[in-house]
């Protein structure tokens, strides 16, 4: 079926809103493309994110748009989410997505991926997890790591804003040491968790720590991570999307903060397993990247 679920029956075209007509006519779906989708289409095409209720200037919303633009095959991609600021955007993504509980996203995604493989042996169905740092590293750490141990064919993307933002700014495991947040009124007592290193140790074939300052870099990482997850095994992206509200920046300062952190806590970390390295070379040769 694939794209048919977006095709409006002609009898109803006149009563459907433009955003739905645009999805059918002007979104970039892998099936319609000769070249891989990517960030370059964002200005001219219909985006898969319709609207959101995040704060003005929130880097998370921009990062999600980059992620969606880079999905290799959105019409066969399921994204699993968790509770947090990201869950405010999820109803507006034009794909099948899931929000189950806080922290169980990698477990839910494991079940979905295995069953989609079972039910559709001839169709590549990608399963991506996208959640915040609280969900990925604190409450959901067990399920995140266990899905890596089990070599689940899923991509895990953590939008790391270093804080529980949606509940009002509490310290998380990803908060840097010394930072004063709620529940850490005298400053955080331990170091930021190096989740990207844990991901590598736990069996991920591709692990990246980065900020969302450069859209093309985010898109490239997303695309590579999903292709590797499909063929080889789990992949992990840790992407800094600062909570400008909680660190006292204004709406236009998110990008500057990310650029600053490109050289500091989010200085580029990239691990690619030898197997994945080989595979990426093959993808490049085939024009899949």
């Amino acid at each position, binding site marked *: *079926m*694939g794209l048919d*679920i*977006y095709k409006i029956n002609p009898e109803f075209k006149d009563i459907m809103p433009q955003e739905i007509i645009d*999805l059918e006519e002007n979104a970039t779906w892998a099936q319609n493309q000769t070249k891989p989708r990517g960030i370059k289409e964002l200005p001219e095409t219909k985006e898969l994110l*319709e609207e959101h*209720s995040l704060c003005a200037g929130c880097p998370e919303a921009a990062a999600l748009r980059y992620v969606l633009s880079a999905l290799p095959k959105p*019409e*066969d*991609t*399921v994204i*699993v*989410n968790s509770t947090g600021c990201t*869950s*405010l955007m*999820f*109803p*507006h*993504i*034009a*794909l*099948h*997505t*899931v*929000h*189950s*509980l806080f922290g*169980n996203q990698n*477990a*839910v*995604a*494991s*079940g*979905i*991926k*295995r*069953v*989609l493989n*079972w*039910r*559709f*042996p001839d169709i590549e*169905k990608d399963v991506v997890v996208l959640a915040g740092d609280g969900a990925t590293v604190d409450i959901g750490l*067990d*399920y995140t790591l*266990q899905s890596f141990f*089990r070599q689940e064919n899923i991509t895990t993307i953590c939008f790391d804003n270093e804080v529980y933002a949606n509940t009002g700014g509490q310290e998380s495991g990803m908060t840097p040491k010394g930072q004063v947040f709620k529940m850490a009124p005298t400053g955080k007592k331990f170091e930021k968790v190096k989740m990207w290193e844990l991901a590598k140790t736990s069996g991920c074939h591709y692990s990246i720590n980065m900020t969302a300052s450069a859209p093309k870099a985010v898109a490239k990482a997303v695309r590579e991570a999903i292709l590797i997850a499909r063929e080889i095994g789990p992949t992990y992206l840790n992407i800094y999307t600062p909570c400008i509200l909680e660190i006292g920046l204004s709406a236009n300062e998110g990008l500057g903060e990310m650029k600053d952190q490109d050289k500091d806590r989010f200085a580029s970390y990239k691990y690619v397993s030898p197997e994945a390295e080989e595979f990426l070379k093959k993808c490049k040769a085939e024009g899949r990247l």
Partner: protein
Amino acid sequence: MSTIKDMTETKNWSGQTLVTADHMLFEAPRNKHFMTGSEVLKEAVKRCTVDASVSYPITPQSEAAHLIGELWAEGYVGVYFRGENEFGVMSEVAGCSMAGARTITTTSGPGTLRAMENFAQWSGTRIPCQLILMARGINSPLTIQPDNLEVSYMLETGCMIWYAENVQELFDMSIAAFIVAEKPDVHVPIVTVVDGFFVSHTRESVMLPEDDIALFPYEPYKSPLPPIDSETPPGRFLRDPFVMKSNYISYATHASWQWEVRSAVERSRPYAEHFLNGLVHITGNEDAEIAFVTCGTASHQAKEGQRELEKLGIKSKVIKLRTIRPFPKKELLAALEGVKYAFVPEFNVVGWLEKEVKTALYGKSDTEVVGGPRVAGGMSLPAEAIIQEVMEKINPVKGA
């Protein structure tokens, strides 16, 4: 390993002939076997064209979970793996079921409590998965012994709850459970309970149909919500959204959604009546003034008590509840007509079934409800205790 592509119009992927639940449960010829509850669950799952199962060890359900794993290795079950803990397992089950799989799992006691947050989420997202609960005590102190306190925590999760008395009932119920749970107007999770050890580990004679037949597969496109497989519109679909963000605030949606889940449980009644042959089963003297209202192993013990009382010239009857959610209120009230005392023997300290019975009877019946006898933590419930409870009530001076 099997693949789903091996399935045809008439055979499932493991080559079994596809049959209706009516044929499986009521028509197919049966032969006598001698097996435990865990073993019989394997036989049930084998005949249910099950897509997926996720397991985790905890006594007393581990063996049942191993045996489902064997079925996977033999090609009867599509997806099987061990999860990281029960919270993870129930989340994995949610994923499997949302993605369109007929899914089963098993747990016990502390596992049930660890996984608790999932059960309300399961019903909220309307998945028709089956949980086999082999009830055991919950901490503290640690016990692995039979005790069904954990069931009381399940009562308001929005899941259906059925209770099997013995090995035979576990077989028949766990098959019917899939079919009823998957009805489009029901489509909520079903918890099939047995008492741990008393049923899971006790070998009994059972009548089973041949294993060359199996149920027709689950049809995910008859689900009340789109399955998560990118094959059904709307393409823009989150299962399930944070509804209060709509139109600034949508005050009624969450309430309506929750009532819809409970409504779905209620809609299971006619289907359950058909497949379970009634929501209550009554044994003993129909016109007795003494009744036992029971579920599970307590029914078995109460029946023994009823036979012993009969020898003493005291008429009684056992009203066995086969479904706890939906609660068979109408049937219970009818069965208690003319009954003076209703005893509720239970395997837990709190008397949750007594509370359920009292709630159902309040203002509608003159029957006096006696919460007992009650045992817990692995104690057995001998007929003598039941007889004593009755004697003390009806003949307080002389006693038993």
